[in-house]
């Protein structure tokens, strides 16, 4: 599973493209895994996952073919 990682999350996770070999089926599972593996993510104001360029809640399922992004707190504008 390949993740696109942005902003401060990229600094924390060590890269803008992260490949996970774990078996993950939902956004909730992915978030739990990331928070566990990269504890500094817990210090952020928010952490949201986007699946195929749409914000996704925990129950959304994820597949190998999906485009998945790790979205730390936004600060555009």
């Amino acid at each position, binding site marked *: 599973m390949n993740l*696109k990682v*942005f*902003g*401060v999350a990229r*600094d924390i996770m060590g890269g803008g493209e992260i490949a996970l070999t774990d078996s993950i089926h939902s956004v909730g599972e992915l978030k739990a895994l990331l928070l566990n593996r990269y504890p500094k993510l817990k*210090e*952020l*104001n928010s952490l949201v996952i*986007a699946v195929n*360029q*749409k914000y996704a809640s925990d129950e959304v399922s994820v597949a190998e073919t999906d485009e998945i*992004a790790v*979205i*730390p*707190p*936004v*600060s*555009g*504008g």
Partner: protein
Amino acid sequence: MIKITAKPIDVQKVIDTASSLGAGAVNVFIGTVRDSVHNKHVRWLEYEAYESMAVAEIRMIIDEAAHRWQLQGWAVSHRVGTLKPGEVAVVVAVAAVHRKESFEACQFIIDAIKAKVPIWKKEVFEGGEAWVSANPPLVIHSN
């Protein structure tokens, strides 16, 4: 027009794109880079975007604005890359028949962009840098 660009924004072009002969008002918001934040001197900002999703999210925001107010035209341009104080980071232009709608829609759009669109900025100070809004502010307790 929804544009994410690494080049300096052509503000007049954004205005001209939004303008319409049917509009009595064109409202323009220009977001600029400040030279200080919390009494710290800002050397520059670094902006980055999840570009494809940012464009999609801005499109949804425009759709919502068009649903709530009658718009004659609109245009949004957001810059990415390294921006120095004084440079233009974002321009939102909205045209409407009357000024009330143009003010309201323009504010709605920029507020929603700031809340939802996957774009991030990092402030670079003398001796440090920080991603804006990433962490809760430090609270120092004195005993």
